[in-house]
C-alpha cells in the first residue's frame, strides 16, 4: 500500500465496468480478490450482494454495476472484488475486471464532462485523461454511504 510518492502523481487502480474504465486511489485499496463465497443479507438494496469472510473479517460486498444501475452480469472469470477500506469500514466492490495500476498526474484530472454515460454523476469525483484513455474517478464517499434502515418494529 504505497501512497503517491510525488504530489503531482496519484497511483490509481483501473477497473472495468461495461467496457468503460474507472479508477480509485491505490491508497484505499486493501486487496483484490477473485471469487469468494458470498452470504446473502436479506432486506438490503439489491446492489448489496451480501457479506463474505475476508480472513476472519465479515466484509460487505457491493455490486458496482447494480449500484450504478447498469445491466447485470454474472460473476465470471475476469470478475473480481476490490476490497477498499474507507471511513473505518471495509467494503468489497464487484467489478468486471481490474487489470492496471497507473500513475495519474493530478493535473490530468479534470471536472467531469456534462454527460458521462449512465453513471449517476454524484458518484464521480472527476475524469482523468491519460494518453488516449479516459478514466472515471470514483467518489467513494458517495458510493459507500452507510446503509441505514429503520427497524420495522419501531414502536
Amino acid at each position: 500500500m504505497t501512497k503517491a510518492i510525488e504530489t503531482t502523481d496519484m497511483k490509481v487502480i483501473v477497473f472495468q465496468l461495461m467496457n468503460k474504465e474507472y479508477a480509485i486511489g491505490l491508497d484505499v485499496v486493501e486487496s483484490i480478490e477473485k471469487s469468494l463465497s458470498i452470504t446473502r443479507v436479506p432486506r438490503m438494496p439489491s446492489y448489496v450482494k451480501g457479506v463474505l469472510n475476508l480472513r476472519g473479517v465479515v466484509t460487505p460486498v457491493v455490486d458496482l454495476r447494480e449500484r450504478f444501475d447498469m445491466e447485470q452480469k454474472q460473476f465470471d472469470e475476469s470478475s473480481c472484488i476490490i476490497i477498499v477500506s474507507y471511513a473505518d469500514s471495509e467494503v468489497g466492490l464487484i467489478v468486471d475486471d481490474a487489470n492496471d495500476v497507473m500513475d495519474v498526474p493530478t493535473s490530468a484530472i479534470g471536472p467531469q464532462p456534462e454527460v458521462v454515460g449512465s453513471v449517476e454523476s454524484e458518484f464521480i469525483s472527476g475524469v482523468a485523461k491519460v494518453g488516449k484513455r479516459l478514466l472515471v474517478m470514483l467518489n467513494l464517499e458517495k458510493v459507500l454511504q452507510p446503509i441505514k434502515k429503520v427497524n420495522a418494529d419501531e414502536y
Partner: protein
Amino acid sequence: MDINQYLDMFIEESKEHLQACNEQLLALESNPDDLAIVNEIFRAAHTLKGMSATMGYEDIADLTHKMENVLDAIRNSKIGVTTEILDVVFEAVDDLELMVLDIEAGGDGKKDVSKLVDTLNRIEAGQPLDLVEKPAATTEESAKEVITSGGLHYDEFELTVISQSSEQGFNALEVTVQLRDDCLLKVARVFMAFEILEKSGEVIKTVPTVEKLENEEFDQNFTIVLLTHEDAEELKAKVMKVSEIEDVHITYITDEYVQRYQRTEHEDSVDQQANPQAQNILPPKAEKGKVTPKEAGKAKKSSPSTSNKTIRVNIDRLDILMNLFEELVIDRGRLQSIASELHNPELNESVERMTRVSGDLQNIILNMRMVPVETVFNRFPKMVRQLARDLDKKINLEIIGAETELDRTVIDEIGDPLVHLIRNALDHGIESPEDRIAKGKPEEGTVTLRAYHSGNHVFIELEDDGAGVNRERVVGKAIEKGIVTEEAAATLSNKQVAELILASGFSTAASITDVSGRGVGLDVVKNTIESLGGHISIDSTEGKGSLFQVQLPLTLSIISVMLVELDQEIYAIPLSSIIETAIIQKSDILNAHNQPVVDFRGTIVPLVDLKEIFEMDNSTSENDDFQSIVIVRKGESLAGLVVDSFIGQQEIVLKSLGNYLQSVFAISGATILGNGQVALIVDCNALIK
C-alpha cells in the same frame, strides 16, 4: 527524572484513593462521630497529595492539601462534621476526579481550584490561628501521631527480644522517619537512613516491611524499631543529615508499653492472627481498643486484596488474547466439521480433546475479563445523595451483590443506562417526604440496587418503594402520544402498561426537570440494553413501588447458537432466546386473522416464516406434512420461527457486519462457520413485538 512510566500507575492509584475518599465520606455522613473514618479519608488524601506532588501535578496537590487541613481539623475535633462541610469536601473530591481524568486523557491536570481552596480555607478559618498559619506542620505532626501511637504490631518474638534487650541495657527505639513530600528517591533515602541506624544498633523490625520499602510501597514516612546503646537525640541528629528528610521522631519502647501492649494484644489476637499482614496497613485502631464490629469486618474484607497475589494486566492485552482465542474457536469449528466428514476415529478423538481443552481455556479467558459490577455501582451512592438533596427528598440507597462479575465490555456499556434508571426512580418513583408521610410510608424512601447471577445471565434490579406506575396516567399519555390505541390499551396487563414507559417519546412527568423527564431516557435505556443482547422488564404496583429488572448476557463475544437451514442458507439463532425446537404437523397450523398460529403446550404462539421475512423464494416448499419450528421468546411473549431444518448447536464468535451495513432488519450480526462461510445471526428481539 522520567515520570511517564509511572503515569498509568499514578492514575490507577489516584482513582482508587479518590474512590476510597468518596466511600468513606458517605460513611462519615451517616456516622459523623466516627473519627476512624476521618482517619481513613485523611490517609487516602495524604497519599494522593504525596503522589501528585511527586508527579508534578501542583493543583491536585494543593487542593488535597487544603482538604487534608479541613479533615485534620475534623479529626482533632476542632470543627464538627456538618452537611455543608461535607458538601464542600465532596466537591473537592469531584474536582480531583476531574483533574485525574484530565491527566488520563493526556491533559496537564490543571484546573482553577482557587474558589474551592478559598471555601476550604474559610471552613478551616473557624479554627485557632496557629492551625491556619502552619497547616503543614500540624498535618505532619498528627500523621506521626497516628503512626507512633501504637500503629505497630509486634509479634510475641519481637516483644521477647525487646524486653530481653532492655534487661541487657539496650534501648528499644521506634524511629519514625518522615520524608519530604517532594522527595524523589524515596528508596535511596530509606537505604541511607537504614545504614546509619544499622551502624549504631540492631534493626529488629520495620513498618512497612523491608520488601515494601524497597519497592517504594509506602507514603512519606516509615518506622524502624532499633535496639541500641545510643541516645535518641544523637541518633536523630545523625539521621537528619540525610537530605530530603523532613523530620525524625523517636520514641522509647518502655517495659510498661510492652506489658500494656501484650494485654491489648491478647484481646485482639483472634483478629490479628487471621490477618497479620493487614495489620501493617491498617490505621491504629487496635491500640485504642475501640474496634467496633463494623470496622473489624471492614478490615477483614480489605485484607485479601493485599494477601492475594495479583498482577495488573493491560486491558488491551486481554482484548488481544480474546481476539486470538476467537480465531481459535473458528478453527475449532472448522476442525470439527472436517473430522465429522472423515470418520477417522483417531482424528475424532483428538478433535474432541481439543474441544474440551479449548472449552476450559474459553472459561478462563472469559473469567479474566470479568469485572465486578462494583466498578459501576460505586459511583451511585454519591449520585443518589446529590440528587436526593437537589430534589429535596430523603432517599436511602441499598446496594446488594456489588461483587457480581460481568464481562468488561458489558460493564463499559451498562453505566449510563443504570444512571438513567436511578435518576428515573429518584425523580418519578420516590415521592416527596410530605407525600410519603401522608401515605403512611416511612419518610425516607428506599432504592435497592441488586445484582446477581442466574444461569448464563446477570440480573441487575432496581427496586424502589415509591409511587409505582399510575396506570391511568400512563395509558392516557400513551394514547395521546399515539403509542397504543384506546382499544388495545384496555386489554393491556399492568405489566404491559408499565413497560409502555420504555417506549420512545414517552414522558409522564408534568414538567421537564433537570433530573429526568425529557422522555428520551428510558427508551435509550431499553435500546442500549437490547443492543447488549439484554432485556429490561418492569413490575410495578401502584402506590407500592416499581421493580426494573435488567437481564444481561455474561459475555458478548462468544455465544451458543442453534444453526438452522433456510433455502440452503444457514442462519444462527442465539440459544439464549430459544425455548425449544419442535416439529409440528402442517394441519396443526391455525389462522387467526391472517396470522398463522399454533397451539403450543396450551399457549397460542404466532408463527413467523423466516423465509418470508428474509425475502426468500418460498414457492419451493416441499409438500411435506411436517414443519420445523423454533420457539423463541422475548420477555414473556413467544413466537415460533418456521425454518427448513435444524443443523445443530454450536459456539460461535459474534462479529459485526461492519460500518457500511449499519442496521439490518432482524439480523444482529454475523459469524464465520467452520467451512469459512459467513452465517447471519437472527435477532429474535426484532421479530417479536
